[in-house]
């Protein structure tokens, strides 16, 4: 492990910070599985208690040539609560990647800094005695292992290692584009979840494609209350209104083709609900084109309380993919679109939208790389919690 360069002291995450991180990582995640979340929290707390505070490496302190490994939970988070972790999974996964890569890891980076993924990355860093990189590979929640800015930057997820709670360790070396296909059956076979260590790369490479500061941002958000809790993400309010109807949507997000002209290029593309398993895979950036999602496409209609009194249609499939204001696109993937309850400013899960609820629709901008044509295409390939 390369010692951090001189300068301002590196912050270390303590058990106290964990509390804030736990709250802050969940601010934007509406549909977090409660029990799994608590398992992850307890796990990270236990590792911190056992191994002491974890240094939080800012992007300018990354080990230039040292190996960094991204860590995430693969599979359904609900399964985490059903088959409890042994605590060995992270270290086994990291060691497996180290074996394939032929050198030792010097930092752990969360693949994404939302909900239990941030906590598991922290547990991994603590357990492995490595610093945690203050940043992540997504900048927002996306469901597939390949849906990261690392992929956009040309870094492959493989060699990748999975460590399951049953003690299995699987290292995957794969040509690009087949990782998700290989990993999913493995995870299903091993009890529903695994810790994945992936995207091994140099610190310098990581610094060029990382979304920086997302861990400290979550910690800051968790420490704040009320409106300030959202402030770190700089949300833009789309409308304040009331849900007037919740319709089942035909989805049909696949009918947006690449290169759609004009303002429609910003539209979401994603799996067709229900029939997706039978749809042949495309070749979009070598990433599987369609993935079945557990929930049904839904339209939430919100009528504005003020101003033009526009009518908003929120198209959602696991997350809100598109917002139309009187038919005009107001926001779409990769924007992160959230419905906040106006009474307590909590994020409302689309699955639990009920007509009559007073809501505010806000948009959080994704990292800029997601707005490039390649970024949009990659973001469109899937949505929903399959990781």
């Amino acid at each position, binding site marked *: 492990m390369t010692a951090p360069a001189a300068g301002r002291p590196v912050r270390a995450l303590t058990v106290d910070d964990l509390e804030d991180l736990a709250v802050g990582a969940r601010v934007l995640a509406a549909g977090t599985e409660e029990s799994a979340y608590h398992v992850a929290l307890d796990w990270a707390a236990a590792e911190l208690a056992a191994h002491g505070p974890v240094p939080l490496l800012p992007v300018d302190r990354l080990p230039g040539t040292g190996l960094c490994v991204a860590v995430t939970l693969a599979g359904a988070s609900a399964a985490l609560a059903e088959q409890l972790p042994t605590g060995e999974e992270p270290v086994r996964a990291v060691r497996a990647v180290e074996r394939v890569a032929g050198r030792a890891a010097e930092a752990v980076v969360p693949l994404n800094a939302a909900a239990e993924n941030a906590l598991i990355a922290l547990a991994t860093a603590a357990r492995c005695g490595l610093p945690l990189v203050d940043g992540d590979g997504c900048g927002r929640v996306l469901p597939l292992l390949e849906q990261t800015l690392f992929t956009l930057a040309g870094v492959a997820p493989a060699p990748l290692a999975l460590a399951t709670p049953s003690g299995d360790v699987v290292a995957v070396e794969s040509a690009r584009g087949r990782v998700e296909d290989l990993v999913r059956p493995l995870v299903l076979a091993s009890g529903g979840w695994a810790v994945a260590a992936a995207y091994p790369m140099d610190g310098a490479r990581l610094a060029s494609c990382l979304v920086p500061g997302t861990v400290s941002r979550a910690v800051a958000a968790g420490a704040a209350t009320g409106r300030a809790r959202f402030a770190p993400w700089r949300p833009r309010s789309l409308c304040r209104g009331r849900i007037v109807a919740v319709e089942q949507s*035909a989805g049909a997000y696949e*009918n947006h*083709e690449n290169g*759609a002209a004009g303002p*429609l290029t910003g539209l979401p593309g994603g799996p067709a609900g229900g029939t997706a398993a039978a749809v042949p895979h495309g070749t979009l950036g070598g990433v599987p084109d369609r993935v079945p999602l557990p929930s049904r496409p839904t*339209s939430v209609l919100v009528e504005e309380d003020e101003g033009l009194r526009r009518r908003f249609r929120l198209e959602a499939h696991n997350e809100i993919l598109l917002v139309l204001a*009187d*038919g*005009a696109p107001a926001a779409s993937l990769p924007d992160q679109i959230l419905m906040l309850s106006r009474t307590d400013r909590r994020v409302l899960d689309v699955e639990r939208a009920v007509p009559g609820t007073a809501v505010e629709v806000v948009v959080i901008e994704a990292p800029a790389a997601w707005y490039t044509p390649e970024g949009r295409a990659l973001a469109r390939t899937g949505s929903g919690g399959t990781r």
Partner: protein
Amino acid sequence: MSGPDPGFRPLTLTELLQDGPLADIEVHGPVGAAVPVTAVRIVDRLAALDEVRPRSAVVLTAGAAAAAWTVEMALRKAWEQAAACVVVSREAGLPGSVAELAGRLGIPFLVVPGDPLDAAVRIASAVARPEAGRTALIAGAARQIAGAGIRPARLLSALHAVLPATSVALTGPAGELLAGRAGALDPTDRTARVTVEVAGPGGEPLAVLTAGFRDRPAGWEATVREVLGLAVAPLTAWAATERLAAERDGRRASGLLAELLARYGDDTTAEPDGARRDPGERRAPVGNERRSPGADAPRDVLEDPTGDERRALGRAEPNPPETGAADPHDPLLAAAVALGWPLRGPFVVHAVRPFGPAAPDSGPPGPETGPLLAARWARAGTGAGPLIAYEGVWVAWESVADPDGAGRDPLARAERRLRAACSEPGLPAPSAGAVAGPVASLGGLGQALADAVAAVGVARPGTVVRADRVGPAHLLTALPREALRAPARALLAPLLAVDRDGSLLRTLAVLLDVGGAPSVAAARLGVHRNTVSARLERLRALGCDPDDPGLRLPLHLACRVQLDATEPEVPEDQAEPPEGEPAG
């Protein structure tokens, strides 16, 4: 490619909807808008919407119609590109919220059954030949109107069926609503209006057809005018039929008049010439119990048009019927207009009393004299409506609402014309006439008719009296002469027995007329005063003393009756007694 023909009118959305290339469609959003359709654009993916040109009909298929949000985006885009309408198949199963957005944006949104491409082809063919669609509209209108017969309510239903989003009203000369929808007359509600005059059987103005509609494309007015024109001939035929029936059976008109008077004639607040007011303010029509037993005429037009209209409008009604669409107009007024009765005040009433077989007081007018008198009457040109049997005489009334006749005495003019008519040699019998009025409205008609009937009762054959100037001589001549003739003769029997040349009788009459003053009587008779004194002596000797108070009135009456029977009528102005001559 040559420029468009300057006379070329592109197909409008309204025409597209009503000409039937699109059957069984649901229409959302504004269809009354002036929207020309010049092209059809089939859109299978949202990106293609950027290429939509203004005034296109945008037909969504495949991916573009796959979900509510794609259709909403298409609506928005089409609206931004000023497209004429958006068409989608019903099979897309879109929720109502999409149609609501169409309404919010104000873009016409058509949901068609079956394959949207099929609709696209049919729209394209209609767009290519707009005149064919227009001709089809007129042809369809002609078919509908021919099938509707001649009754106004049915005709108006047919007009509403062929002219979507257009209200049509049939009004009488006073503006009273006879059939159709009051909304067509509301000046604030509609922006454009087309009126077509309906002439009566004799060419006189009978009624007016008014169509009201909101912002329609150029050319719609001409189309409406053409369609309204198709209804003129049936309406004229309706009036002719009503009049024929009324002339064939006088009781029909009499009954109608009785009903009209019952409803309007004795109530000054219920004037039908206020028909442009909210009809709801009008007094509710009286029930059947007030209709006279013979009044079967109005029932012909009592049909409620709304039921027929609704059925005829089986196609999509683009706009919800505005309030007042099923206006409770008064069929009684329609019947009156059909018969040519003036309804716009002020009125002057004419009464005619034929002496002889045409008199209506011996039961209903005979089949031979009634029509003859009516025909003569129509030819005489009094300006009044047709004759109606009423209270034993014939009555008619004219509307004297003549703006340039203001200041002149309408009654004097009517009197002059009626006198000319009554003295016409072609009349089947000598007639007396009377005029009464003027009254401001139908509310006063009953009183004016009563005045005229009373006045004509005292008029002599060939003369016309004004109800407002009936004098003492008229009162006397109103006596039941036939009944008094025998008693008169008995009272005067001693006199008549000796009065060879009638001079004694005349002297007695004049003496009584002038209050017994011999010198005045002498002047009137053109004889010497002593002659009068001598005759007075003889009269006293015969028991006919004009100074006897108990005898004076009976003798005066007997003289009048006896003189009427033996002498021609004294002209009225000379029959007036001289004024101020004291009794000698």
